[in-house]
């Protein structure tokens, strides 16, 4: 399998796609449409949405650790808390964030 370069690097701002629906999807609903920052590249893994149906899960998907601000997701008062999730590249679009990171 040819390996495409990783599309995102740590620090890049991304928005989680809202769909399309995918069986055995590993992108939680509460993060869809949310803006986060790439915290790290986790590597390439077989696609679990295909492996769940006994397919080889190829090509492998790039996986990232993505950091979200708790208050962005739940519309609460700004605070230090963060949520980290592991998301596959095909669920992420480039984005910009209007409010800079809280200290």
């Amino acid at each position, binding site marked *: 399998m040819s390996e495409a370069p990783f599309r995102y690097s740590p620090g890049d701002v991304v928005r989680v796609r809202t769909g399309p629906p995918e069986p055995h999807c*590993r*992108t*939680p609903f*509460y993060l869809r449409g949310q803006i986060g920052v790439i915290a790290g590249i*986790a*590597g390439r*893994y077989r696609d*679990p949405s295909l492996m769940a149906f006994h397919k080889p899960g190829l090509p492998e998907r790039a*996986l990232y*650790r993505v950091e979200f601000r*708790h208050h962005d*997701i*739940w519309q609460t008062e700004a*605070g*230090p*808390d*963060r*949520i*980290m*999730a*592991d*998301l*596959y590249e095909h669920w992420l679009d480039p984005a910009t964030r209007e409010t800079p990171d809280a200290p």
Partner: protein
Amino acid sequence: MPHDHDHDDHAPIEDAGAGEDELLEIAIRELLIEKGVLTAAQVNGQIDAMDSRTPALGAQVIARAWCDADFRAGLIAAPLQTIQATFGMNMSTPLELVILENTPQVHNVVVCTLCSCYPRMLLGIPPAWYKATAYRSRVVVEPRAVLDEFGLTLPPEVEVRVSDSTADLRYLVVPMRPGGTEGWPEDRLAALVSRDSMIGTAVPSVP
């Protein structure tokens, strides 16, 4: 016979018979064995391997990380390889382990909101609450309230970082070494490291 004795508060010894899921498991297992795909010994071997993994393994790893800076650096850079090379336990898995270090500024807590992903290779079977909808849904929404219920109240300036293991990574929290344990041997330190402190719903303390 008169009812003149007490009953201990234990689960019934005889269960009520197999439920639908259990019957399905038995049917599939027996078919796989009958068709020669698996042997009964392999099934039992796998159960034994799973049962042999307990939080004591994880606690041993944490205690070593507290005492040995080189081990800690290796653990962070290549967790499974370092654990296998140091302790000899077989860590071969397609999954990757990620080490989350607690600091005075950041407290980590782990969840799998989608199912029950858990670092079984080091901690064994997850506790029932880890798989419960209440924990899985609430800890990402109100982590501080959930931690309060576990008896862990964190100052507002400490970042609570919830890691949702949604895919191929598994997370192990390295708690901070409690004060007053200078010079303790590793086995005494390991006894302070609870399962929950490696999930992030507790922190070790000196009794």
